[in-house]
């Protein structure tokens, strides 16, 4: 006994200290009041009505529509938190969850349930067969075939349920395509068989195509990541155009579809406005955001006491036509907009940008809303952004500056649209995980990471918070996904390696007699290794001999550079790495002694004495990531944003450095330079 009490007494100070630290940590980690749309009822003025908004999944198009529902409600006088208590539910694509949510909202003392999409309509209608709660539905292609008791007649619906149907004008879209290209014979469609709306639209399309004598080739995509393959398979089967009905999955990856189609020189036409601006030939249909807005207004009418039985269910606003004339030139076949079509279109995009037709005077204000929010518009909420870096280095600081710049040029303003805090692990791997935890404890809406290690730590610690990365050379090798479009759901960002291949012709131009190039790299930096591999391939391909030296610490750089210069090289072509860029003066001194020109890929070393810099650097990459972050903040789901390979180059030329190595820069190269140091 005495021994045990002795041990306890011996351990007491330690245990007390740990308990104290834990308590401090817990206190600083007190959960904040929820920031979202569910303020604590007891503290606020009692809301008068309770509304549940049920959506099936969080694709960006659905989220946009849901936001517009809320806007519509607000316009009808139901402000969330004041006169309305809104509960948003999202089944995240799981039918069982949707059913559970339906049961909950039906028995949950709500004044109104708003459902978006057919499965949600069906789930709630099924749970609500006794009409316990009022129900407004939307984003449903054809309510009459959804089996919930809605007939063709506008008033043929249950007395507790009304809504808006949005049947995509599939028929109309094929007729238009025929009008633009009378020789059209084969059209491809990618659609997700799990989407009821899409199935209905595709059925209509099959029928229409048969009537028009068009062969409709189909390919299925179960999720956004399989869209690429499905589209490629259609292109391989020689389709002359691609059609997108109301398929949410494919629309979420529409940039990809357009990109693939452009490469194959075929057009894309859709039943969803907003895509012509992204490179589709034309859109004809109703925008889901606009429909969402109408649903919100309809919900407002119901909440204001209008009798549901007297409200007709309707089909959404007449479809609108959006044309993009910039696409036709690059297409195979004869695609030409007839004059009357150009005149009747609601909007035409030509090489000068979008030319809006005079909107009909009586059209509701909302219908004119552009599909995308104007850039300058503040976000609906202030986003909490946290940035995690792994090391302090020039590159990491550049990348961070780039991210801020990217957000700014996307029209987002600090303190108005987001608040920002940076964390830096200062190269300590053990702190990195804790750092991510600390960043997460602020309940950020979005996590930004600089460097491969930081994004890996972030992925390990959270699955819920979206992560946008930068300063990553190869995200596939970092284990973040399989390809640009097929990646971990919450992880996106910009990556890239220096444009080594682009550099080779310049070296050849400046040094026609050069035979051997040399570089320094840091074998322990994952990014440096990728850059190095890319460079060595490019050098080999260009027919140069190649010498390299690896460095592990900055103190080794001068010696390694000297050793490299002694290997009979004709120029140094420096790959990007933290270490080498931080000790660049060591490189340049050795190069000067040997009268060798230095070519590099990092903007910051141009002034330091590199003759030619082809910068695809971390500042640019950061900017790309910032722009991606802005897209996420404007409502796109990171899952459907493909990773972006940075491709922009800036050419920087240092004339004094060139003179020192007795190089003359040709006029043509000077002309294309973005910056010349005199």
């Amino acid at each position, binding site marked *: 006994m*005495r*021994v045990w009490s*002795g*041990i306890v*007494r*011996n*351990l007491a*100070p*330690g*245990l007390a*200290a*740990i308990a104290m*630290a*834990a308590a*401090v*940590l*817990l206190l*600083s*980690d*007190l*959960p904040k009041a929820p920031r979202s749309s569910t303020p604590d009822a007891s503290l606020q003025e009692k809301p008068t009505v309770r509304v549940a908004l049920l959506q099936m999944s969080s694709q960006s198009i659905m989220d946009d529509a849901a936001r517009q529902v809320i806007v519509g409600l607000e316009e009808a006088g139901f402000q969330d938190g004041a006169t309305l208590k809104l509960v948003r539910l999202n089944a995240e694509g799981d039918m069982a969850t949707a059913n559970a949510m339906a049961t909950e909202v039906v028995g949950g003392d709500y004044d109104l349930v708003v459902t978006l999409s057919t499965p949600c309509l069906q789930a709630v209608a099924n749970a609500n067969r006794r009409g316990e709660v009022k129900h407004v539905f939307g984003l449903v292609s054809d309510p009459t075939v959804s089996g919930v008791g809605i007939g063709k007649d506008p008033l043929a619906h249950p007395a507790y349920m009304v809504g808006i149907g949005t049947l995509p004008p599939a028929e109309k879209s094929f007729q238009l395509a025929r009008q633009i290209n009378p020789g059209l014979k084969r059209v491809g469609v990618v659609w997700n068989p799990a989407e009821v709306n899409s199935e209905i639209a595709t059925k209509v399309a099959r029928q229409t195509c048969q009537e028009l004598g068009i062969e409709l080739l189909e390919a299925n995509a179960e999720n956004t990541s399989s869209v690429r393959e499905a589209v490629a398979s259609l292109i391989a089967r020689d389709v002359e155009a691609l059609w997108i009905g109301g398929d949410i999955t494919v629309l979420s990856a529409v940039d990809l579809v357009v990109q693939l189609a452009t490469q194959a020189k075929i057009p894309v036409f859709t039943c969803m406005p907003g895509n012509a601006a992204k490179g589709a030939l034309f859109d004809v249909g109703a925008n889901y955001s606009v429909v969402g807005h109408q649903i919100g207004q309809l919900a407002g009418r119901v909440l204001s006491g209008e009798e549901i039985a007297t409200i007709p269910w309707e089909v959404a606003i007449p479809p609108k036509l959006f044309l993009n004339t910039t696409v036709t030139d690059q297409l195979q076949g004869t695609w030409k907009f007839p004059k009357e079509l150009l005149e009747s279109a609601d909007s035409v995009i030509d090489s000068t940008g979008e030319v809006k037709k005079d909107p009909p005077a009586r059209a509701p204000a909302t219908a004119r809303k552009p599909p995308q929010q104007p850039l300058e518009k503040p976000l609906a909420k202030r986003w909490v952004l946290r940035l995690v*870096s792994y090391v*302090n280095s020039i590159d990491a600081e550049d990348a961070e500056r780039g991210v801020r710049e990217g957000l700014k040029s996307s029209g987002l303003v600090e303190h108005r649209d987001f608040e920002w805090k*940076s*964390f*830096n*692990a*200062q*190269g*300590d*791997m*053990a*702190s*990195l*995980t*804790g*750092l991510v*935890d*600390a960043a*997460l*404890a*602020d309940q950020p809406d979005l996590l930004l990471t600089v460097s*491969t*290690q930081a994004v*890996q*730590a972030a*992925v*390990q*610690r959270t*699955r819920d918070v979206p992560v946008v990365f930068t300063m990553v050379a190869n995200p596939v*090798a*970092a*284990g*973040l996904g399989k390809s640009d479009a097929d990646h971990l759901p919450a992880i996106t960002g910009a990556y890239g390696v220096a444009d080594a291949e682009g550099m080779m012709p310049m070296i050849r131009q400046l040094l026609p007699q050069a035979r051997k190039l040399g570089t320094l790299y840091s*074998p*322990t*930096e*994952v990014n440096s*290794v990728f850059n190095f591999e890319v460079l060595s391939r490019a050098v080999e391909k260009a027919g140069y001999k190649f010498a390299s030296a690896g460095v*592990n610490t900055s103190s080794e750089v001068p010696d390694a550079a000297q050793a490299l210069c002694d290997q009979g090289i004709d120029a140094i072509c420096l790959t990007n790495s933290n270490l080498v860029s931080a000790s660049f003066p060591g490189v340049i001194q050795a190069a000067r002694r040997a009268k060798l020109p230095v070519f590099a890929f990092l903007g910051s070393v141009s002034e330091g004495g590199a003759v030619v810099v082809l910068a695809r650097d971390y500042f640019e990459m950061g900017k790309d990531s910032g722009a991606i972050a802005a897209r996420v903040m404007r409502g796109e789901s990171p899952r459907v944003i493909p990773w972006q390979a940075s491709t922009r180059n800036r050419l920087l030329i240092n004339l004094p450095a060139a003179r020192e190595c007795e190089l003359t820069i040709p006029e043509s190269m000077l002309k294309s330079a973005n910056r010349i140091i005199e």
Partner: protein
Amino acid sequence: MTLLIGAVTMGLILSLLAMGVLVSFRILSFRDLTVDGSIALGGAVTAMLITSGVPPLVATLAAFASGAVAGSVTGVLATKLRINGLLAGILVMTALYSVNLRVMGKSNIPLMSHATVFTGVQRLAKSDDRWSLLVWQAPTQDAWVMLFVFAAIVAAAALLWTYFQTRHGLSMRATGDNPDMIRALGVDVGWMIVAGLALSNGLVALAGALLVQYQGFADVQMGIGMVVWGFASVIIGESLVRGKHVGLLIIGAIMGSVLFRLLVAIALRWGLNPNDLKLVTAIFVLAALVLPDLLTKFRPRAGKHTAEVPAHA
């Protein structure tokens, strides 16, 4: 709460590092810098084996073996080739940097899509289950992982303690305390140091193995600066417990490591200017070292206790 659980888990994992440093630094009185290399070696070996399909538990144990080999090399350099102990450690640490790159084949191996020793424990809860205490919430999976790591550390500490009660372990302790005496008793001091360093670096590599599985990737730079945190944990630990008994020292090292990670977490949580992080960490460590002493001084009665302790021991 997530932050607390994360910090405690990390502290427990790194307490293996602290125990390793305890063995070399306190038991053998050997300042071993191999640690920076052997923790990354443990991580590298584990990551490489797991990605090539070896069961995670086997991979973790292999990490221990690899660390033990690294430690014995340091030991042989120091005792048989009579190289200064500090330099021997630096040499092996430096060499391990390249060895680790060779082992991994590249500088970074992601483990996110592979099963680790924690996978089975995480299956006890669904990924979105939350565990709550009063107003705090945390993912249940994290809590299970923490309990699992705690159990593993308790087991490791118990094994270490048991070893130091054996004849071999006692000789090792005596080697550090009084090499001349133990040599006179016919024990080969050199091999004793080699064995001690093997054990020490094996523990360190084990910490590396758990660390990569916890953080989901291995990176060749993960060892940099680790030895310093190991020393800090051991020294903080000594100020936290009263007495020099080996069991207390082991517990102290664990507590020191956990407390250290908690302090780092607090510094992180307060969201100071990121550039000040290490300064603040250093100040916290200083506080942890000085405060217990100060408290004893201000409470005169506490002095009596310390005086009584030897009577029990």
